[in-house]
């Protein structure tokens, strides 16, 4: 029986592993964290239809029934290729495989790098991921002092489309996430005033535009302008400065809470992993794919495939598609060997 190693137990890794196991391969998933499900397991509800993310993660996890098998808290720290077979090392243990799928996903942009926004310095500047955590825990956002915020600003493109922090690319999912979260805040705290500071709104997916329209109808204010800086006022309120570029006016406002829509960055550690296989990151730091149109999971090295957010920002749908695509490509590869 041919063996496939899947590195990463997020949505991509789990989906690909399940598909490959159904095709009759022996599949092992290596997850560096103590639980499978990746970032998605940390979210509360998903765009566009606000389904609970736990449903998605639980269904994916239910495939783990021995084949595919999963090793949790197992970081692969070395991969070598020898005569078309791969040897993966973790904790001095060696695993063998005939094909490898890289599904290491992404990391959230470290918001403290955008220092002028005050993350980690001011009390009530949080990230979109932390807001999801608050929804999960309380069903509504809370300020550091435990109060509900009455005035919030969502800052789009934090660590996306920003050359100054070496993230020149669009992270794709943050626009719609902000719109979704703004609606959720409005529903949880109806009297709250909400502002979204955006560059462009990229509502490309099914249902996204509807969500945007719903947000406007619910009275959420959209201001086209990037945040220039934030400072802290008395009572831990935050003063934000921007320019309303549609009316060419500088704008200043104080809010109770600032939510930074952090983008997707290449996962740390993926670099060393792919370097060991003779692969290079693309110019944005993600795993390089050889054919973006006809074979978006193939890498330069035979037998090594990559899928999901490790190849660039993806939403769940994209990742599931890529996972299935990878399963088919791995099947073709193993049969032609």
């Amino acid at each position, binding site marked *: 029986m041919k063996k496939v190693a899947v590195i990463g137990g997020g949505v991509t890794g789990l989906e690909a592993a399940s598909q490959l196991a159904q095709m009759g391969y022996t599949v092992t998933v290596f997850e560096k964290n103590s639980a499978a499900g990746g970032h998605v397991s940390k979210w509360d509800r998903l765009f566009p239809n606000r389904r609970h993310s736990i449903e998605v993660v639980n269904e994916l996890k239910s495939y783990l029934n021995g084949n595919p098998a999963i090793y949790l808290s197992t970081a692969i720290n070395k991969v070598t290729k020898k005569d078309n077979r791969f040897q993966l090392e973790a904790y001095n243990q060696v695993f063998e495989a005939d094909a490898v799928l890289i599904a290491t996903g992404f990391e959230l942009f470290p918001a403290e*790098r955008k*220092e*002028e926004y*005050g993350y980690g*310095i*001011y009390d009530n500047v949080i990230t979109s991921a932390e807001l999801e955590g608050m929804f999960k825990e309380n069903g509504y956002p809370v300020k550091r002092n435990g109060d509900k915020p009455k005035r919030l600003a969502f800052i789009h493109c934090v660590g996306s489309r920003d*050359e*100054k*922090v*070496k993230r*020149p690319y669009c992270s794709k999912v943050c626009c719609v996430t902000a719109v979704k979260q703004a609606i959720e805040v409005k529903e949880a705290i109806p009297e709250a005033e909400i502002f979204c500071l955006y560059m462009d709104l990229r509502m490309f997916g099914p249902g996204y535009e509807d969500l945007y329209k719903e947000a406007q109808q619910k009275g959420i204010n959209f201001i086209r302008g990037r945040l220039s*800086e*934030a*400072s*802290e006022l008395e009572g831990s309120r935050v*003063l934000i*400065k921007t320019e309303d570029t549609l009316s060419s*006016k*500088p704008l*200043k406002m104080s809010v109770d809470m600032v939510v930074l829509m952090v983008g997707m960055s290449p996962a740390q550690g993926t670099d060393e992993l792919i370097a060991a296989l003779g692969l290079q990151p693309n110019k944005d730091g993600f795993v390089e794919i050889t054919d973006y149109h006809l074979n978006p999971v193939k890498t330069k090295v035979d037998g090594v495939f990559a899928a999901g957010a490790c190849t660039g920002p993806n939403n769940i749908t994209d990742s599931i598609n890529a996972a299935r695509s990878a399963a088919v490509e791995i099947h073709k590869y193993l049969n032609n060997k």
Partner: protein
Amino acid sequence: MRYHPFTLPFSIGLGFIMLYIIVMWTIWIVRLSRREQKIVWKRLFSFRTISAIWESIREGLLHRNIFKRNVLLGYMHMSLAFGWFMLIVLGNLEARLYPHGVINPPYYPIFFEFFRHDLTPLHEYEEIFTFLMDFFLLMVISGVSLAFFKRFRSRTLGMKRTTRHILIDRIAITALWFIFPLRLFAESVTAGLYNTGHFFTNFIGQWVIYNLPLDYLYYPAWWAYSIALGVFFITMPFSRYMHIPAEILLIFLRKYGVKEKESHSTFTKIELSACSRCGICIDACQLSTSLNISDTQPAYFIRDLRYSQPNERLRETCMMCMRCLEACPVGIEITRIRENERREHPLFSASSYGYINGYKYPKAKVAYFAGCMGHLTPSVIKSTLALFDAANVDYTFIDKNGSICCGRPLQMNGQVEAAKQLIDKNNHLIGESGAEVLVTSCPICAREFATSYHLAIPVLHHSQFLLELTQQKRLNFNQSGLKVTYHDPCELSRGLHITSEPRELLQHAVILSNGSKETESKSLCCGGSLGITNISMAERNKIATDTLNEIVAESSSYLATACPMCRKTFANAQDKIKVLDIAEILEKNLNFAPEKVSEKNQSPIKQQAVIS
């Protein structure tokens, strides 16, 4: 015999250049402003003149500044200038001591050996003169050889890149290179025939070229020498070699206090002519060393400005970091000239700043101004204010609710009028604060306040202010024992000459370790410069990482800097080393002062360390 037609090319050339220099000097001096002329007259008979003479010798002849940079390069310049000068002086003395009288035509001492083959009437001076003339000729020839060698292997002389010259410079330099070998040849032929030389020319004439038909070569050799001199003199005013007379005038005027103003002036014209296009500025420029942009440096910018008009790329491709200014052996005010040139050709029109409304802030003895860059690094503000609080400083934060820019970025890009609007607003704000001292954590603002605001109160960079507080025992720090590399920001080190205060202050909390000679006035720019708009983020990051690779000592835990912009640029460019402002490092190691001094009875600061 005291005349021969071969002296004509030289005589015509000499006459032309002398007349040209006199006319140009006169025009330049006459066109100086009334005020400038007044100070020149007032200071003409003072110690400044002696000092100017000494500097002319030191830089014009001996080239001390270039020696300091590279000994071989210094020797090359010195041997050409000083060697040639000594040949002229000695030639004149020799001709005057000859028994036929002291009044000679100007060409006569130059071609003395042609006219006088019998040097015995010089008696006891014969030996010494022939020796010295040979000695200095050898020195000049060695300089020419080095200059020739430098064209092919400039690295040996400490220059990675040399200037690419235009046609007129190539003609002039070729003539100059020919002068001395031709002189050597003419004198050697003469020495071979008449034994008029010493160890050098006699040796060549009698042992090396003795089997050539010297009789036939005698006249052509002297003709060729004279022609080379004539060509050099004729091309001189139109080429880089105009720097010789212009630099002398520049040195004197500068000593008397004449300098660049807010726009181009006659003094600018003199400065432009005083540039020899030596190319030392090219290697000093990080655009060249990091990005391979090696055709926009002052050697080219100044040249184009002297002859016509530099194009936009030439004018704008400069970080205004002042490293070239520091490196220039002539001391031309390059950055000022470029800023003035940008004023004449603004790239964009800054919109009105009328919407900026004044804020009301409480009055206090110390006004703190964080600046735009300060607001982009809120942790610097937080740490600075925490230190103020610890020292019980009576301060008011005058740009707390969002800053009004100090105006410096606009100035650097030629937007004087827009900058004025901001300066007026800030001036009002500073006046309203009732403060006795203005403190800023941004060197860019500090420099702008010091140079463009004409404030009634002193301006301090926060490193100076915090040092004063520490010296007054109002702040106390624990020595952490951590090793830290300090980076000098351009505007602080070269702009305001503040290099010791930040170091002294840091040493209260950390141990300084520097891995490079490129510090203080020679410090490297972070690449974040507001003075350049036509390089990409990736290029800026390249400059930042190159700078860090050069300056950070292996053992350092942090990079300390004193400028929020440098801090941000370095931090964004890499993940290897953590970058912190001085204030952040100090706050981490703050040891609360045992005795808190009441601010009420104290003057906020002693006035000695202020930026003038």
